[in-house]
């Protein structure tokens, strides 16, 4: 599903290149649950951003579902966001001005899904995450864990084939974190959604099927769990 070849990312400052990623090559298949680990500054988030096409690599090629997406025009990229990629952020990043239901509905609107279908999908998500009672609340009226549930619900609403999660439990207490990880595992197992998460936590990594260890921009270790 994802094929990275010799991905490099560096910033040139006064002639000095500071590397974020070096010679990153790997393949991630449909249905995998990959955890990217490593110390601060190892390039984990940059790798995830490149996978999410939020950043472009300086060098190397990136194939997404058999298509070269190394430098994609905006229209096509947005097409992928609408249909294949769901993002989950550490800071949840819900839209403050929208209610829970509206946040979940937002990607469906951009996907131009009909009103009835939208209603049923949103209702389904609310139901599934047990947040029906909170559907008219605004994000600032929810706890962190609840917000992250909404964030995941939003990512899933568009029925993506892959979820990219940047430290999804980083801001959460351990009980809540556990809940989120169970959820990811279930989504991966039961619905076959590919998940790539960046995490600091060894425990979280054990929920996945594979761990990529990054150090100073280089993949040091590629473990099957």
């Amino acid at each position, binding site marked *: 599903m994802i094929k990275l070849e010799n991905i490099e990312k560096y910033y040139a400052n006064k002639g000095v290149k500071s590397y974020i990623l070096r010679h990153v090559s790997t393949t991630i298949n449909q249905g995998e649950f990959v955890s990217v680990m490593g110390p601060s500054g190892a390039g984990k988030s940059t790798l995830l951003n490149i996978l999410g096409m939020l950043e472009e690599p300086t060098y190397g090629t990136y194939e997404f579902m058999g298509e070269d997406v190394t430098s994609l025009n905006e229209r096509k990229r947005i097409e992928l966001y609408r249909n294949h990629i769901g*993002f989950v952020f550490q800071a949840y990043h819900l*839209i403050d*001005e*929208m209610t829970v239901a509206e946040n979940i509905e*937002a990607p469906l609107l951009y996907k131009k899904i009909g009103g009835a279908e939208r209603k049923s999908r949103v209702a389904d998500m609310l139901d599934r995450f047990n947040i029906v009672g909170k559907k008219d609340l605004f994000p600032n009226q929810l706890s962190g864990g609840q917000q992250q549930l909404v964030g995941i619900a939003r990512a899933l609403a568009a029925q993506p084939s892959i979820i990219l999660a940047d430290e999804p439990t980083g801001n959460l207490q351990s009980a809540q974190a556990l809940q989120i990880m169970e959820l990811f595992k279930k989504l991966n197992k039961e619905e076959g959604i590919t998940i790539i998460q960046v995490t600091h936590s060894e425990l979280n990594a054990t929920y996945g099927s594979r761990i990529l260890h990054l150090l100073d921009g280089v993949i040091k270790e590629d473990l099957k769990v």
Partner: protein
Amino acid sequence: MLKLNFKIALRNLWRNRTSSIINIGGLAIGLSSCLLLLLYAGYEYGYDKQFRDSGNVYQAMVNAYDESGNVANTHGFTQNVLASALQAELAGLSEVARTTEAYKRLVTYQGNNMKLDNRYADPAFLKVFDYQYISGNPEKALSDPNSIILTESAAKRLFGTADVLNRAVKFENQVDLKVTAVIKNLPANVSYPFETLVPWTIYEQLNNWVARMNWGNHEFFTLLVLNKEVDADQVNLKLKGMVNKYLPNAKEDIFIYPLKRLHLYGDFVNGKSSGGKIKQVQVFVGLAIGILLIACINFMNLATAHSQKRAKEIGIKKTIGATKASLVFQFMLESMILTTISILISIAAVEVSLPWFNHLLDIQITIDYTNPLNWIILGAVLVLTGFAAGSYPAFYLSGFNPVQALKKTLNFKRGYVLNLRQLLVIFQFSFAIVLIASTITIYKQLQFIKDRPLGYQEKALIEITHEGLLYERYDLLKDKLLADGAVVGVTQLSGSLTNRNGTIRDLKWEGMSAADRLIDFDQIYTTYDFIKTTGVTLLAGRDFNKKFASDTAGILLSKKAVAMMGLKNPIGSKIVNQGVVRTVLGVFNDLVWGDRTKFEVPMVITFTDGISEDITMRLNPQKSITESTAAIQRIVHELNPDFPVDIRFLDNLNEEKLKNEVTLAKLSNVFGGLAIFISCLGLFGLSAFSIEQRTKEIGVRKVLGASIGELTTLLSINFLKLVLTAIVIAMPVAYILMDHWLQNFDVKTSLSWWIFLFTGGFTLFIALVTVSWQTYAAARANPVKALKYE
């Protein structure tokens, strides 16, 4: 999607109440000003364009030449025979009609006396202007020699109803006329308004001289309609030299000028159109756009200032599939919603302020909600404003990179954006400063003109129209008034002291040069007690006096006249005025006759009985004004019972003269005030935002030991720098503009340095108050709160 965006936009407005209020308030004020001024401009542009043939209506104009053949002046007063001559000379002329100035004439119906604005006109006048008839036949309404046409409101006042066809009225207490038509009230913006219209033949019947063929007397207006295919320039070529065919030594040419242009382009230099009222309209339109623009700037500034807050939302939306176009659309929608709210408020504001505005400009504007054109213009203003205000933030915000926006590492292109915002603030304040400096200058000039000595005592000086039986009973009236003690002086004048209406050239005196023949003297005809009544300062000699029989051939000269004539010993010298040898009895100090902004011209006061339009009187200072005027009312009514008595105070009439300047002063005052208010609103919003952003910095500095004073200065100084820059830019502009404006006046005030010092100081003070309002509060806040923020 639209619904959701709409909902979110409203939630955003509610969440950021302060900036919403600043935005909507500023925009509403700007839009109201703009709409008012546009209504005014529309009113002026609409002059004389309400009629079916408006495009083909022309007015005959006169270029009068001086000795050397240059155009001395251009005016619309034509001879009574011109209409028939034009009909004979010109092919392609479909209609031609004469009319007079509108004068108050006495109309009586069953003892109900009323003075109505009347014009005399040829029957073709109704072909030139297709009025809206409530009753009567436009084909015949003026053809019957004893007919009268009334406007609806005149009919209602006179009869109590508009259904008055074929009723009889008495006109000027002399002839019986039959109502042949009632028309809808005329719009206020026509050049030839009237309340009653009476056939030209009645005019000739009442005044013998009008019927006499005369190429020398310029008194009337001649209006014509050309056939569509006729080219006005060709007509004008044909008209060159036409008058000389009938009057060989005439020094004038006739030309035709489109009536629909006359109101706005009514000034002529060397016989060519050189603008006119259009300049004032353009100034107002410029003002309208300027004020709207500074309101839009507020919007842009606040929107981009808040961009950091919205960066996250943009980032998220992009990752869940929003295109740039959909984001632009969203921000434009927000801007349109805001503009719509503002425009609704401003429509209400315009409705409320319209009576005041009409009163201020002495016009009659109403908003016609049924006119689709008004809605189209309103829609255009809405879209343009919404677009102008929303486009920059929309494209700026929607261009954010999602990763940076979400990581809060967004580089806000600090230098560039801040510079643009600074430029906009500088622009706003420059505009406001120019308006303030202009306002002060206009007021100063106004005061300067008002303070200028008139040369006569205008206080307690009154006049009534000399009319009806008052001509034969003038001496009786004078005796009675003086005996009663209501007045202490009475004289009759050929025209009001406030209104210059007569000049004479070709005076002869001993020692004159050939060129002196062409000096134009202002002239008033009067009889006894001129000086005594008016309070004009006598420098030498004496007033006209009944005791000296020879005074009937007397003349008084102004100081300037004496100087220009070069008379060494003016008293007793002989002057030939229109063939009559007159003796100079006195010399008086120059007086302002008519326009206070013009230099004095030489003037003569000539004794002539019978040419009198006004009876001028000085009230008795020992008695109260109400008592005196009541006595005058009673006495005049006794002697001339058929005419209502209208007592006019000369100081009021003089006040009227300055109306244009007063209007301009009031308008620039109001709109200058609004401009500075809107600019300060924007500054308030920006400083609030800047402080919000710098909360942490303020906390840190406080912990490090900065005092409240130092912090306030630190936070205010950036904004004050902008205002200072604006002052530096605006001052020369204001100076040049006002210097140019003052060129309109002969008598003008100086552009003192204090105007600019005051304007600068005032603006700076207002800006300082606006900014420090918040900076002080921020500087005083507890640093712990500020530091907890992140």
